[in-house]
């Protein structure tokens, strides 16, 4: 029998390209970042899809964390750092002088490399944001926010009996999920994660990755990771940075099987010189 493969349109469903179906949440154009005289980020144009996970990968010092921090103006806190270009979230310029960075950071939450709970109780860690932003007028309301945030962060069952215990008394993985709960508590739309699993063991990492997968239903997530396998596992869109330049942006399924740029290819296959 001569082979008669199925024509492409009769092939079993291939993986859906999630990124094709969603809208743009963050649009960055011609973004430059300078640290003093150093041009750390050059001409970055990127569209970050809403309700999807976008991973930034690249070697150390490539600018991926720097660029991530421009998205909620964390770089404002560094004196020598200067950002130019255009970054819009839902069409609004976040570098507009009228924008209050504190409000912006409520909308664009952040989780860091090392879990950094406040030296307070588990309850107060999560309640801190809603309190300073005045999101709850009554104790019952605050209780509700704390409980639902911990639930969304997949931590509730592990801590519901010790909400008054110190946040720092939790394990590393639990602390990181506490930090995610703290970020969620102020109802952000975007969550930035800067290597959220690099200090965690594989099981705690898996729990955080499972959480990221659940969160993307309601939030836009941008994650910086040194683990390419992690980027491949959790993201729908992947951006490869090198020497301050965005080299390649594409659907994760394409970036890890058929990257278009030689530099991306060399990096993901472990050939970087």
């Amino acid at each position, binding site marked *: 029998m001569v082979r008669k493969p199925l024509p492409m349109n009769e092939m079993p469903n291939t993986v859906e390209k999630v990124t094709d179906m969603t809208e743009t949440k963050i649009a960055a154009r011609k973004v430059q970042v300078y640290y003093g005289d150093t041009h750390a980020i050059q001409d970055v144009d990127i569209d970050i899809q809403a309700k999807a996970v976008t991973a930034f990968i690249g070697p150390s010092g490539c600018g991926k964390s720097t660029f991530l921090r421009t998205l909620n103006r964390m770089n404002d806190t560094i004196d020598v750092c200067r950002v130019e270009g255009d970054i819009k979230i839902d069409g609004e310029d976040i570098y507009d002088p009228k924008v209050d960075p504190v409000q912006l950071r409520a909308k664009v939450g952040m989780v860091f490399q090392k879990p950094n709970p406040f030296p307070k109780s588990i309850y107060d860690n999560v309640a801190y944001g809603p309190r300073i932003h005045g999101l709850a007028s009554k104790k019952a309301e605050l209780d509700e926010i704390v409980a639902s945030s911990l639930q969304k962060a997949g931590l509730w069952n592990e801590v519901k009996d010790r909400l008054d215990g110190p946040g720092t008394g939790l394990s590393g993985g639990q602390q990181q999920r506490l930090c995610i709960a703290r970020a969620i508590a102020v109802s952000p739309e975007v969550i930035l994660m800067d290597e959220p699993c690099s200090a965690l063991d594989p099981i705690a990492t898996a729990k955080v990755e499972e959480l990221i997968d659940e969160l993307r239903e309601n939030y836009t997530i941008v994650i910086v990771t040194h683990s390419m396998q992690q980027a491949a596992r959790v993201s729908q869109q992947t951006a490869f940075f090198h020497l301050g330049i965005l080299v390649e942006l594409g659907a994760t399924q394409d970036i890890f*099987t058929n990257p278009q740029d030689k530099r991306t290819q060399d990096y993901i296959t472990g050939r970087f010189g």
Partner: protein
Amino acid sequence: MTEHTVSSYDEELTTIAGRIAEMGGVAEELVSDAVSALMRRDLVLADQTIAKDVKLDELLLDIEMRNVQVIARRQPMGQDLREIMAAGRIANDLERVGDMAKNVAKRVIAMDEGLKSSTLAIGVEHMTELALAQLKAVLDAYTRRDADAAKLVRDRDSEVDAIYTSIFRELLTYMMEDPRNITQCAHLLFCAKNIERIGDHATNIAENVYYMVTGDRLTDDRPRMDETGVADKENA
């Protein structure tokens, strides 16, 4: 291609590629020997061909084990991932090519008398030359990572199919002419079918080489030439 930072990774991939080349060499030899045995009615060569097929099974197993190890330990990405996937599939196809050759060799032994006239088998021999040329070309394309050459092989498979169709008709005519030809022609027909399948495996390999090199699939637009309408369950 630049080398991996971890040099033992390169060695592993090179070894797998080397094993594929080795399998290719053995498979070509088996096909050529099986058809020589058929043409010369050389039972010793037929026996040797059948025995040598074990080598391909061993190499296939070896490649599969190595692939599993690379996937488990290196988590290959990009081109490396495609290379590992392609190696596994190509090894499978080459192992099947060996089986086809073995089938032909078994028929040489099963045919209770030699070819009455070798003219009957000339078509099969010609078809074998073409199938072997395809196999050789696709193995070269694999070694040189040449996607264009692989595509050429894929596009040329219709020639093998066309010869098969004409052999089928020819043998049918002989059988109708004289029922005493039927046994021999039936054996030859199965041999021809096996050789035609080798062409198909060369095509499979070509498609995998193309994907391995480019990351894209060859679109399926080549013509179909098998008009015999015969479903062959023998080698299914």
